[in-house]
């Protein structure tokens, strides 16, 4: 079901949490609302759900205006960061809850409920836990039960508030993969909130970057990474080296292969993998030295230092595949020559 967010604003006292948000989410997408903490992403999600009301603006689900509708009538599924399972009910009763509280006319028979609940528990691969209580489960299991519970009422929209935020790193990685596969299977329009850009890039088909109550950019993950709309997005998505375009830097960038064009902006952002590093020739006058390097698994991050005329210096980070680093046979303190393949220009 498509979601249309029209001119939504929300203030908490003097603090503007959301500032005239407009957003359209097509049917069947898996969208990440991504931003630093306090950017308004959770508030926006709760407004879509009806758990919070907007000061201004409208929410449409499938073209229907739901702005004034109570959360219990919106037909949404909501998954909370801390699971919010009913602690006094078994896993089975938790998942059955949404079916059992339906009006008598729509309520399925107990036998149908049992069948459906077991199907859902099989979908999340936890049917064997059906008679346990939430406090007997691990965090990852609880979150999968919470998801099954939300899916039981066949929501037209699935909303997840930092669904993996409370889990440890390895469980989080598994669940990301699992959520993406589940979405492929069910095709229910889903929005999840996260502050983790890696998670957003990995799971979502569309990413919406929020900052200080407004949308910075919306697009496919690759699009946002390769063409950040502004300096905030560029810094927030992935790693980047920021260079102010003072005279010194302009001259140096030219020697590193980047022609500076003043009209495009006064700051250059350079991704670490856009910097080629090699050992400087003995007679080269390259001033850059390799200070340190870190092993990131398949990548090596090298820390480069460039002294400047006024006595201070700049640090740059470059990344390269493990294999390549081995071939270069670099040591700490070596002088290196750089070639910069690409830079983004912004005004700050």
């Amino acid at each position, binding site marked *: 079901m498509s979601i249309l967010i029209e001119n939504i604003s929300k203030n908490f006292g003097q603090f503007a949490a959301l500032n005239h948000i407009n957003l359209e989410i097509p049917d069947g997408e898996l969208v990440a609302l991504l931003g630093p903490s306090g950017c308004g992403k959770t508030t926006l999600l709760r407004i879509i759900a009806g*758990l919070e009301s907007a000061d201004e603006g409208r929410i449409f689900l499938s073209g229907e205006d739901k702005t004034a509708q109570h959360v219990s*009538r919106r037909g949404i599924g909501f998954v909370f960061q801390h699971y919010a399972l009913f*602690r006094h009910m078994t896993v089975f009763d938790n998942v059955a809850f949404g079916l059992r509280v339906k009006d008598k006319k729509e309520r399925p028979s107990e036998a149908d409920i049992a069948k459906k609940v077991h199907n859902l528990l099989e979908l999340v691969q936890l049917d064997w836990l059906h008679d346990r209580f939430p406090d007997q489960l691990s965090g990852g299991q609880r979150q999968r039960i*919470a998801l099954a519970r939300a899916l039981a*009422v066949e929501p037209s929209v699935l909303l997840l508030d930092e669904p993996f935020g409370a889990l440890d790193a390895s469980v989080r990685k598994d669940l990301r993969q699992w959520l993406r596969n589940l979405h492929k299977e069910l095709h229910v329009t889903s929005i999840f909130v996260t502050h983790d850009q890696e998670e957003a890039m990995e799971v979502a088909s569309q990413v919406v970057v929020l900052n200080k109550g407004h949308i910075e950019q919306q697009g496919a993950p690759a699009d946002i990474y390769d063409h950040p709309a502004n300096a905030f997005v560029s810094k927030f998505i992935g790693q980047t080296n920021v260079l102010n375009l003072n005279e010194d830097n302009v001259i140096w960038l030219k020697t590193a292969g980047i022609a500076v064009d003043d009209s495009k902006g006064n700051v250059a952002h350079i991704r670490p993998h856009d910097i080629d590093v090699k050992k400087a020739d003995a007679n080269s006058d390259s001033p850059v030295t390799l200070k340190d390097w870190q092993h990131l698994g398949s990548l090596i991050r090298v820390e480069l230092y460039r002294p400047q005329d006024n006595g201070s210096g700049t640090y740059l980070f470059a990344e390269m595949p493990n294999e390549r680093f081995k071939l270069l046979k670099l040591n700490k303190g070596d002088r290196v020559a750089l070639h910069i393949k690409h830079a983004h220009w912004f005004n700050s």
Partner: protein
Amino acid sequence: MNALVQPVKQFKKEQIQHATEDPSWVRYTLISISLSFILLFLFLPLGLVISKAFASGWQTYWEALSEPDAQAAIRLTVLAAFITVPLNTVFGLASAWAITRFEFPGKSLLTTLIDLPFSVSPVISGVIFVLLFGAQGWFSEWLIAHDIKVIFAVPGIVLATLFVTFPFVARELIPLMQEMGNEEEEAALSLGASGWTTFIKVSLPNIKWALLYGVLLCNARAMGEFGAVSVVSGHIRGITNTLPLHVETSYNEYNSVAAFAGASILAGLAIVTLVLKSFLEWKQGRRL
């Protein structure tokens, strides 16, 4: 055998004092102080009350309690508790809900005022009602015109008890509900449950042990209250004497068997309360 190991082996286990442990004399002194306090101020009086009550045998004990004035006092005590405990349960639930779930002006004032009966001497709470409803009170003309008696009558006793006991339920619920947050309720609503269904099926089961605990303490206080009730009651035997007041009147009249028989019932109530209280604490501890 290695000679260096030898001296270490000679240490006995008891001689090692752990870094985090207080010296044993501190522990034993503190334990014996608290135990002798409890013995002196709790078990000794309790034993005395019961032995005094039965000093002249079962027969007299039973007669002292079945005498009409004693019976009336017991009935009045039960009646006052029967009215005030449900009312304060509803009040406690409502105010705990309002304080933990809503933002409204005057919220912190309400939170403070709920504790007022704990900080005010019970005598003063009694006097307040005399000032309001007594012969020279604010509402006296209206009350006389409508032939309603509050002071020196049952309504006054109920009002005073109500006032003294209203913090109990709310105070048990507020910290628990604050700690739990309202995510479970939001989850229930998002699954299509109505507000009422959510309350019955999600909120109430989560707070039931704390609620019962509050009700229990509220009841104990309602039945045992002396100060505030004493001011508004007028001590009319068989009419406005509650059980605690009956104990006092009997004692003042040197009727020690009647006094201690009444006291033994109150002491019994205290013991039952204590046992139930530990049971509820245990239950609640397991849930959370």
